[in-house]
């Protein structure tokens, strides 16, 4: 950690905050604070430089135009990419997974270069994937099921350096088979909900990466109840 306080950078919430993904930063902050780990959220807005000193970077979903603008901004101010090079933790959601890759191709067939943080390419799928998603962990990365809500047209193909986060049981994810991507300490997913309130085990995995220590248990009955409800609604019992 660069400072005694864990700094969570909320990257361009005014461009990539369309789907409540701000909640991911809140969950990280609270889950640390409640366990006595000092943490704070740093808002990095459109037009402002991106610091490279933060410990965790959270990037949310956004519309096509916003996505292009975000890439432009993050290229002009490459603080997050520099942080990634030294091993900072990064969570990319939806647009995040697309702009972190080598390239993304829109429905208009124009290909835009990505930030090259993960080995992947994205392109527009035939139909928009909308609805509840249930997926099982890949390579024992985390425990329990991954649950969330997807709403995206993009489809993502991973290269050999990136591995999937999970295997899709219900929903579409990257391609109907796998969901998300993990490369080093960068974790990407198509899932909103937002993803961390619905998947505290992923939040704690990111906290473990950032602090070097596996955080202790934190019992939040409403969260357990929500996970059970959503899995049941998707027709998959939460085991």
């Amino acid at each position, binding site marked *: 950690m660069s400072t005694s306080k864990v700094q969570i950078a909320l990257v361009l*919430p*005014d*461009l990539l*905050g*369309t*789907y*409540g*993904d*701000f*909640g991911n930063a*809140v*969950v990280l902050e*609270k889950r640390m604070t409640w366990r006595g780990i000092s943490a704070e959220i740093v808002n990095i*807005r*459109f*037009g402002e430089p991106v610091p490279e000193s933060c410990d965790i970077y959270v990037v949310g979903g956004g*519309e*096509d*135009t*916003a996505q*292009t*603008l975000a890439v432009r901004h993050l290229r002009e101010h490459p603080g997050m990419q520099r942080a990634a090079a030294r091993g900072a933790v990064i969570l990319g959601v939806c647009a995040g997974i697309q702009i972190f890759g080598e390239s993304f191709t829109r429905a208009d067939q124009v290909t835009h270069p990505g930030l090259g943080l993960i080995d992947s390419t994205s392109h527009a799928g035939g139909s928009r994937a*909308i*609805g509840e998603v249930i997926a099982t962990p890949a390579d024992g990365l985390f425990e329990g099921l991954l649950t969330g*809500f997807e*709403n995206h047209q993009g489809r993502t193909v991973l290269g050999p350096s990136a591995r999937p986060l999970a295997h899709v049981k219900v929903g579409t994810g990257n391609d109907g088979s796998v969901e998300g991507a993990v490369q080093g300490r960068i974790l990407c997913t198509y899932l*909103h*909900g*937002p993803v961390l*309130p*619905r998947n505290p085990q992923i939040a704690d995995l990111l906290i473990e990466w950032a602090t070097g220590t596996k955080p202790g248990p934190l019992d*939040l009955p*409403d*969260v357990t*109840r*929500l996970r059970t*409800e959503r899995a049941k609604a998707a027709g998959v019992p939460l085991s």
Partner: protein
Amino acid sequence: MSSKLSQKMGLGAGGMIGGRVALKLDPQALAHLTSGRSVALVTGTNGKTTSTMMLSRAVSALGEVATNHGGANMPDGHVTALSKQPDAPYAVLEVDEGYFPEVVRAASPAVAVLLNLSRDQLDRVGEVRTIEKSLRTALASVTGVVVANCDDIMVTSAARDSANVVWVATGTGWHNDAASCPRCGDPIRWEGEHWHCTGCDLARPRPQWVTGDGYLVTPNGVKVELSLRLPGKFNQANAVMATAAAVALGVPVEEAVQRLRAVSNVAGRYRTIQRSGHRARLLLSKNPAGWSETLTVVREADHPAVLVINAHEADGRDLSWLWDVPFERLRGRQVIASGERATDLAVRLTYAEVEHTIVPDPLLAIDAMPPGPVEVIANYTAFRDLNARAAQ
């Protein structure tokens, strides 16, 4: 021939056949039913139903008004409403943002009112920038007057290309969807109430009408007290937009304000129900901007709050937006999470550090509160169902 048939069918529709059937029989039914009337259309993300009711009350100073009370704001609802009052020379119609271009083409409005634009039901309505572009094209074709909120960047961009715009400073706008210019993408900069794009010439136009705290200022600089019965800043904004639209149709300012002032309950919203020793005020909020405004209204007193959340198609099935609502403002208050998706809300409240319990049935949630006043805030289908049950 088909037009004759549709007139017969459409005008005869009333309660017999619905607007949907009339439109099936004649796709031009809306054009025929609006032809010869002076039409005002009201659209935007929030405040449509309230503003439509205010405007229809104000316009009734000029003559009979056909209007779609109660939020049936798609073309079949318009056809039904117009068929019920075939002789009304005026029509004031609430229009869903997605159907606005189609309704503009059919109705050739004398006045089009654009209140505000923000994120709402992303899985159904689509992204706000897409909506802005389609409204921009539709409004550019309006030959009548466009009444638009210049404190909303998206609205300004959508209305600016129209020939005849009346700008209203409402003092309200949801800025979280407009950090970048809808025209060129560059950052928007705010200086007090003024805003401008740093990359192109999009900037806040000079308003003709201005909303103050409890009053409005007319284009001639005359200050008029609003004294509304409906609470909150956003209803003042709705009232000034409605007044500007009514004046564009020929209603004198004082008369317009006097008439819309009487609105106290809009399709059950804002009304208070008596139940098991409780006085429960029913408030509808559908999206982050609406919830944010409503949480400001309930802040005026420290009453216990029942929050009711559903996620049917009409609500939007994705509840991610709950995280865009500043529920932190309810800290220290007695709160019950209710509705079919009470648990999603409960998780949001947990992380907002708002103490709460879960009671999925909203009527039982009201009963579970200590006797006295209770604020009940519900989203669309939750409100509709609660309102219907409370009326029984």
